[in-house]
C-alpha cells in the first residue's frame, strides 16, 4: 500500500481514527504540532488498542498519563490525558477522556502499557479518578490516611493547620 512508504502525518492519523470510530472521536486540534483529540471514556481502551496495533500508526510508547480538573465543566470535571509516541515515525499524539466527579470510573490501561500502573495511581492520588481493573489502586505519593484529593481545584495548597506562618503577611489572609 502507498501509505506505508510516506511519513506519518497528523492528517493521516486523523483520517484513520475517523474512519474507524466515526463521530465517537472528536475535538481534533493541532496546537504546537501535536494532534490532540478526545473521546468518551468508554472507548479509551479501544482507541488506545487501535493506536497501538494498527500497523501504520504504531503508537507503542506511553509517554505520559495525567489528570486535569476542570471545575467549570459540569459532567466532565476530571479529564485523563494520555500522551503517546511513535518512535520510528517520530510523532506524538495527545488523547483525552473526561469523566464526571461524582462517578469517576475509567478503564485502566495497565494491560496495554506497564508504565500506566504508577501514573494511574498518581492520578488517583491527586484527583480521585478510579481506574477500573487496576491491580493495586492505592495512594502513591501522599500519606495513606489522607482523605481528600489534593490537586482538585477546591482544595488549598497550604496546610491549614500550620501555626508558624502568618497568612496575612503573604497576602492570603
Amino acid at each position: 500500500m502507498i501509505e506505508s512508504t510516506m511519513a506519518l502525518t497528523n492528517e493521516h492519523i486523523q483520517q484513520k481514527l475517523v474512519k474507524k470510530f466515526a463521530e465517537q472521536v472528536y475535538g481534533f486540534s493541532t496546537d504546537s504540532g501535536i494532534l490532540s483529540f478526545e473521546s468518551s471514556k468508554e472507548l479509551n481502551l479501544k482507541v488506545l488498542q487501535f493506536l497501538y496495533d494498527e500497523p501504520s500508526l504504531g503508537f507503542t510508547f506511553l509517554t505520559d498519563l495525567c489528570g486535569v480538573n476542570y471545575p467549570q465543566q459540569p459532567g466532565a470535571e476530571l479529564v485523563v490525558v494520555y500522551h503517546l509516541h511513535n518512535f520510528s515515525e517520530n510523532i506524538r499524539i495527545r488523547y483525552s477522556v473526561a469523566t464526571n466527579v461524582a462517578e469517576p470510573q475509567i478503564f485502566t490501561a495497565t494491560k496495554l502499557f506497564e508504565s500506566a500502573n504508577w501514573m494511574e495511581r498518581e492520578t488517583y492520588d491527586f484527583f480521585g479518578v478510579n481506574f477500573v481493573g487496576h491491580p493495586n489502586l492505592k495512594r502513591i505519593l501522599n500519606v495513606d490516611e489522607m482523605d481528600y484529593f489534593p490537586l482538585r481545584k477546591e482544595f488549598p495548597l497550604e496546610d491549614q493547620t500550620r501555626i508558624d506562618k502568618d497568612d496575612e503577611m503573604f497576602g492570603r489572609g
Partner: protein
Amino acid sequence: MRPVRFNIHPKEANINEAISMGKAPDGVPGDGFFATQLSSVVGLARKNSLWPLPFATSCCGIEFMATMASHYDLSRFGSERVGFSPRQCDLLMVMGTIAKKMAPVLRQVYLQMAEPRWVIAVGACASSGGIFDTYSVLQGIDQVIPVDVYVPGCPPRPEAIIDGFMKIQDLVGQESIRRRNSDKYRDLLNSYGIQ
C-alpha cells in the same frame, strides 16, 4: 602528582599564616599535668570525634556529599566515620525536605539514638519547610524532634554546613555533664512527647 588548583589567581601557601593554636580549656597547668573540669575534657574529646548520621533526603544531601568529599573535607573536624546506624551515632544531620510521610521515620530514628545526641537541621526545608509551604511538607523538623543548630540556605554552601558543624562542636564542648539528666532537658523532651 597531578596539581589541581581552582583559583585562577592562586596565592602562594605560607605555612606560618596557616597554623593556629587551639584554645585550651581553663585549668591549672603544671609540670606534666593539666587540671581542669571533667566536663571540659569530656567535651573536648567528644567535639573532635563526633560521628554524624547523614539523614540526607534531597538537594542538601548532594551538598553534603560535596562537603564530605576532598575539597571541603568534613573529616578534618573529626567526623571521618559517618554511620548509618542511629545506635552508634552522636549527631543527626537532617538534610533536605522532610515530608509528612517521612516525619514518623525521622522521629523513630531520633528515638533510637543514644544520649548524648545532637541534631542539626541543614537547609531551609529542614529548618522551616523552606520554599515548600504545601500540604505535604512538614514545616520544619522541630515540629517532631528537638533541634540544636539550624543552618539556613537552599542549599547551604559547604562552608555554611561546616560552620553549622563548628557551632555544634561549640555546644558539645561546653555542655555540662549533668545536662542530659536535668529536669530542663526532660521537660524539653516531654514537650515533644518523648519520654
